[in-house]
C-alpha cells in the first residue's frame, strides 16, 4: 500500500462527510448542493453530487463488483463521448453518448467503475458480429501535458486496460466451445480429437494447436481467460500491444455486469505513477457498441479528463 491509505483515519464515511473534506475545484459547488439536499438526507444518504473531474476517493478496500454498495459514496463524473474520427477507419456515426465514471483508490490500486447505456448485449463473437467493450487509458508517466489522447505518441506511451463482454461471458462460465457460440452447430469431429490421440494428452493438445496458430503464438485473443480485462500499451494509433506479463508489469482485473439499461464495469489497476492527493494525472475512456459494429478504431472516446485523488 502506498501513502494514500494512511490518510484514511476512520471507517468509510457517507457522501456528506466526503464532500465536506473535499479539496479541489469541486469543493465549493459540492458544498452548496449538499446544503440544499440536507433535509432529504435525513431519510437516506444522498449520492454525492457530480464532479467535473474524475475523483478517486480513498477507500480501505476496492470493490470489484459494480453493484457493490461502496460505489454509492463515490462521486460521479459524466464523460461525454465523441466518435473516433481522427484516423481511418473512422467512426462517423455517433453511438454511445456518454459514460458515467466513479473511482476509488486504496493507495496501491485504483478502481474505476464505468456505466453506460446499451440496450443490446453483444457478447458473442463471430463473422460480422462485434462486441461491447470499454477501456481506460492513462499516460505512462505523470506529465504537465499528457501525450496525444489518441492512444499516446511515439516515446510517450499510454497504458490501456480493455474490458470486453465476450471475455466477461467466458469468465462467468460460458464454455470455450463452438456450440456455446452457435448452439445449433453440428460437428462431426476434429482430427485432433480422434483416436489414437488420448483426450487431454500433450500430443492431443499439440495437434489441436496446429489448427490454432493464434494460440500457438500466445495471442491473448484466444480463450479461455482468467480475467475479462487485458493490459495494453500504445504509442499512437495502430500500435496497441499487450503489456508485459513479467513480474512487476501491470496486472489489472475487472468485472462487468448488466444493469437495467446497459453495462457497468469495474476495472482495477495499479495507481498511475506519481498520482497523489496533491497531484493530478489524466485519464481517457472509450466505449464500443457491438450492435453498432464498433471494434478497434471504430469507437466512442473521450478527450483527456483530469484524475485526482481525494483522501
Amino acid at each position, binding site marked *: 500500500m502506498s501513502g494514500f491509505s494512511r490518510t484514511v483515519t476512520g471507517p468509510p464515511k457517507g457522501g456528506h462527510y466526503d464532500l465536506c473534506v473535499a479539496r479541489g475545484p469541486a469543493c465549493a459547488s459540492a458544498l452548496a448542493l449538499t446544503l440544499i439536499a440536507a433535509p432529504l438526507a435525513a431519510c437516506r444518504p444522498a449520492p454525492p453530487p457530480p464532479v467535473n473531474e474524475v475523483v478517486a476517493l480513498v477507500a480501505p478496500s476496492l470493490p470489484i463488483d459494480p453493484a457493490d454498495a461502496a460505489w454509492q459514496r463515490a462521486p460521479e463524473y459524466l464523460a461525454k463521448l465523441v466518435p473516433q*474520427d481522427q*484516423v*481511418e*477507419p*473512422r*467512426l*462517423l456515426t455517433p453511438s454511445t453518448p456518454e459514460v458515467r465514471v466513479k473511482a476509488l483508490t486504496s493507495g496501491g490500486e485504483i478502481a474505476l467503475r464505468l456505466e453506460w447505456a446499451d440496450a443490446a448485449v453483444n457478447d*458473442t*463473437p*463471430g*463473422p*460480422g*458480429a*462485434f462486441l461491447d467493450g470499454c477501456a481506460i487509458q492513462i499516460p505512462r508517466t505523470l506529465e504537465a501535458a499528457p501525450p496525444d489522447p489518441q492512444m499516446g505518441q511515439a516515446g510517450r506511451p499510454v497504458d490501456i486496460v480493455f474490458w470486453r463482454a465476450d471475455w466477461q461471458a467466458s469468465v462467468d462460465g460460458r464454455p*470455450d*466451445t*463452438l456450440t456455446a*457460440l*452457435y448452439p445449433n*452447430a453440428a*460437428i462431426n469431429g*476434429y*482430427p*485432433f480429437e480422434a483416436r489414437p490421440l488420448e483426450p487431454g494428452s500433450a500430443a492431443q493438445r499439440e495437434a*489441436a494447436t*496446429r*489448427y*490454432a*496458430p*493464434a*494460440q*500457438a*503464438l*500466445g*495471442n491473448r*485473443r*484466444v*480463450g479461455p481467460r482468467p480475467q475479462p480485462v487485458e493490459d495494453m500499451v500504445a504509442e499512437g*494509433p*495502430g*500500435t*496497441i500491444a499487450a503489456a508485459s506479463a513479467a513480474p512487476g508489469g501491470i496486472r489489472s482485473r475487472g468485472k462487468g455486469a448488466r444493469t437495467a439499461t446497459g453495462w457497468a464495469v469495474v476495472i482495477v489497476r495499479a495507481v498511475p505513477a506519481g498520482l497523489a492527493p496533491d497531484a493530478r494525472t489524466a485519464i481517457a475512456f472509450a466505449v464500443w457498441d457491438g450492435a453498432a*459494429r464498433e*471494434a*478497434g*478504431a*471504430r469507437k466512442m472516446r473521450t478527450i483527456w479528463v483530469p484524475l485526482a485523488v481525494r483522501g
Partner: protein
Amino acid sequence: MARVHNWQIGREMSYWYPENRPKKQFAAVFDINKCIACQTCTIACKTTWTSGKGQEYMLWNNVESKPYGFYPLAWDVKILDKLGPQSWKGGPYEGRTLFEAADAGERVLGWRPESDDYAYPNVGEDDCAGQIDKGAALSLPHMNWLFYLARICNHCTYPGCLASCPRGSIYKRPDDGIVLVDQGRCRGYQECVRGCPYKKVFFNPMTGTSEKCIACYPKIEQGLQPQCFVNCIGKIRLAGWISKPEEARADNPIDYLVHVRKVALPLFPQFGLEPNVYYIPPVHVPTSFTRQLFGPGVDEAVKTYRNAPNDRDLAGLLCLFGSTEMMLSRWRRQGSVVAGIDERGDAVMQVPLDEPVHVRPAYDRIYQIQRTNCP
C-alpha cells in the same frame, strides 16, 4: 494515400501504401474450362489447414457455380453494386477502384458478411429454380449456361485486406508476395474481412483472429505447388511466378499465359487490387458477362484459347497443368514434348503434346456384344 502503378488497369491509382513489389510474386493460372467442381481442391485445403475449432465454416479454397453461386452469399454482386457502374473501354480503366471509391473515413470500399452468408456453400447453385408447374415459364437474367469458379486468396499486389488493417497485422512477404495475417498481432477487428472484395479473409470466433489462405507457403518454400493445385482432379491449375509486364519472359509459364498470350486474366481487375490468380475464361459463356469478371481482354482470350488445337505452344504449356507437384519457373517445347523446369534449371517433368488415341468400337466382334453401358 500513395500513387501506385497497376498494370492490370493500365494506369496509376491511389493506394494506402507506396508501391513495394516483392522480389518474386506468387501467381497462378486456373483454366476454368477444365473445372468440374468436384471440390477436391476444397477438401485438400480443408483437411490441411482449416480443420480447427472456429474454422468449421471456412473455405480458404472454394468452387462456386456462376452466375448464381456465391461463397459467401452475394460476395461479388454486393461489392459491384456498392461500386456502381464504371466504364472501361479497353485502354486504361476509366472508372474508380475500390480504393478510390472508399467512403469518407474508410480506407477501401467494402462490406462485412455475417455468419449466415457463409452457411450454404454450393446449396442449390446448379438448380434452376425447383419445380416449375406445367405451363409456367422460368426466365432468369442468365439462361442456359453456367461455369465453375474456383477461388483462393489472390495474394494481391495491392491487397484490400492489408490496406484495411489499422494496426498493420497483415503483411506481404518480400520474397514471394504471399499475403499473410500475423496471428500473433491480429486483434480480430475484421477490417480485413470487410476490405477484401473477394471475401477471402475469415474471422475465427474461437481464436478471435482473422485467418486466410497462406498459399501453402511451407510447400512453396520447398519448391512445391500448394495442396489445392496438386490435388486438382481436372488439372486446371498451375502455380508459378509472375513478372511485371515489361519484364515478362516467354519461357516463364505464368508470364507466357498472362503477358505474352494474354489468355489468362485477373478476376475483377477493375477493383484495383492487382490480383495474382489468373483465369482462362470459360469459352461457352457470353462475354457480356465474363467481361465484367475478367476485364475487356476476355473476348481476345477466348479467341486465343479456342485456337489452342492449332497452337502448339499454347496447347503444349496447357499440358503441363497438373503434371507435377514441383513449382515450375520455366518451360520449353521441343517438337511434341513439353518440359517443365524448376528454379535450378532442371527439367523436372516432360509431357507429350500428342498422345496416342485408341478408338474402341461400340460393337465387340470377338465377343459379339455391344460395349455401350447404357441401360
